[in-house]
């Protein structure tokens, strides 16, 4: 049996999360087929065909997949799923939105946020905000898995190209329409894929302070910017900056937490980072319990000094 992976893209470029999901698929057995569904997405299909381990690309190019709504996509994937042992998506906003719908249409369970693959039917996943790890065995014939991308290596190019097969589109259900999409534009690396993340919390006090103190530091380090829930709720930064249990899960080489106290929900999103640095004026802040290097200091002095020193 083969594995079906659903590629995430914006009709022009493939999202990095798909490369890690492919890395997870390499831990399973069988050919790997990748579905590229979109509108005007041929270039994405060709790019996917170059990736290591991909044996076939299923290209489905139709207007109803342009905005990647779950309803139409789920119908399409439901029709394909029967021929596969596993169906994989990244555990991104899109993957989380789509895969449960497909699994339910097939009357099968989904395993969310897989961080370990023990065998073809047994998987490890975090529960309780990562405070426990559960090993679960799926007894359904098709395993629907959303993959926590930070837990798997990303996959590179193969050197040869897999076949690209064009497949027929499913129905346009007409259930839903995209009205608007406001994506944060940034020259900085994507939060999920960044090597270094500078993240700010309530301690910054305002959006102006956040930008004034953290942007120069992030610029100097070539880092992505993140935030705690408190900073997002207070309106310092947009929602897509949030790192945590219900925001983005990150695992960069260096995570610099500035003015973040370290609620367990935040730690759940960043504790797999290689090196964690915390700057906080409260020596009892829980963030220091997970930090490799803690600096007890006023962030308004320490962060600019750090920017100067590197």
């Amino acid at each position, binding site marked *: 049996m083969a594995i079906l992976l659903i590629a995430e893209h914006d009709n022009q470029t493939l999202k990095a999360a798909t490369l890690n999901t492919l890395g997870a698929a390499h831990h399973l057995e069988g050919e790997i087929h990748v579905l590229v569904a979109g509108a005007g997405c041929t270039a994405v299909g060709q790019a996917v065909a170059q990736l290591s381990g991909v044996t076939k690309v299923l290209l489905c190019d139709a207007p109803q997949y342009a905005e990647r709504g779950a309803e139409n996509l789920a119908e399409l994937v439901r029709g394909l799923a029967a021929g596969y042992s596993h169906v994989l998506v990244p555990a991104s906003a899109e993957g989380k939105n789509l895969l449960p719908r497909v699994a339910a249409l097939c009357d099968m369970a989904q395993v*969310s946020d897989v961080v370990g693959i023990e065998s073809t039917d047994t998987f490890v996943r975090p529960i309780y905000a990562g405070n*426990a790890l559960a*090993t679960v065995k*799926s007894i359904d014939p098709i395993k629907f898995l959303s993959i926590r991308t930070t837990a798997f290596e990303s996959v590179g190019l193969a050197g040869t190209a897999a076949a690209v097969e064009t497949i027929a589109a499913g129905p346009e259900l007409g259930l*839903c329409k995209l009205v*608007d999409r406001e994506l944060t534009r940034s020259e900085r690396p994507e939060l999920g894929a960044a090597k270094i993340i500078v993240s700010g919390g309530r301690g910054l006090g305002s959006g102006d302070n956040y930008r004034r103190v953290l942007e120069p530091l992030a610029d100097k380090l070539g880092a992505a910017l993140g935030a705690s829930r408190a900073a997002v709720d207070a309106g310092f930064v947009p*929602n897509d900056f949030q790192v945590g249990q*219900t925001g983005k899960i990150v695992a960069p080489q260096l995570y610099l937490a500035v003015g973040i106290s370290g609620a367990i929900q935040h730690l759940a999103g960043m504790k797999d980072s290689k090196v*964690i640095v915390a700057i906080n004026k409260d020596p009892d802040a829980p963030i220091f319990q997970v930090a490799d290097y*803690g600096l007890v200091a006023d962030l308004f002095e320490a962060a600019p000094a750090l920017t100067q020193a590197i």
Partner: protein
Amino acid sequence: MKVLVPVKRVLDYNVKVRVKADGSGVDLANAKMGMNPFDEIAVEEAVRLKEAGVVSEVVAVSCGVAASAEVLRTALAIGADRGILVQSDADLQPLAVARLLKAVCDREGPALVICGKQAIDDDANQTGQMLAALLGWSQATFASKVTIADGQATVVREVDGGLETLAVRLPAVITTDLRLNEPRYATLPNIMKAKKKPLDTLDPAGLGVDVSPRLVTLKVVEPAKRSAGIVVSDVAQLVEKLKNEVKVI
């Protein structure tokens, strides 16, 4: 228009999670339990829609053990009109819950279901999407703003790159994100009133739903602990460590 709001009884979000020594699960004995926070946001949203005159009735539904009636009373105290407990001692997984909710929807005929986007115990983030699939309805997940008018819901969703706005045809399933609203505290008079509101009890067999689990939990362990590192004295020492000791900058 009737709204159905599923609510789940979970370990209180402030309680420290303890894994059982035998690796069979998380220890919930005598622990403080409460309503899943995302579900509180869902109840609040439904009640606000009722207060705005958009919705005529808010029905809260909980699937689980008998004590789940407590979270239904909480939903009633926030302002839901009545509660339905689908009582079961089984390990109810998302697909089973979605199938139970589908059966309740078939009986109740709501035009809208508002769910929490995930429960903070199993962190699955599946039930709302699965319910929408089983009903054949549209879905708007991770909502941070909801407007209902003219038979459709306009929903602002929190997605990876920012925000997107969807227009979904009703009936639909909406799942709530953190910033949709701030749930009110139930006042004492409302808690007293909630005790008198109707609460029906059903069971999976009566709804004709097979709830047998599809995932078998083999073991539950604590993750490897990250040990606290060192406290550096100043910025210079921090830079020295990052450059020379761990070489990440």
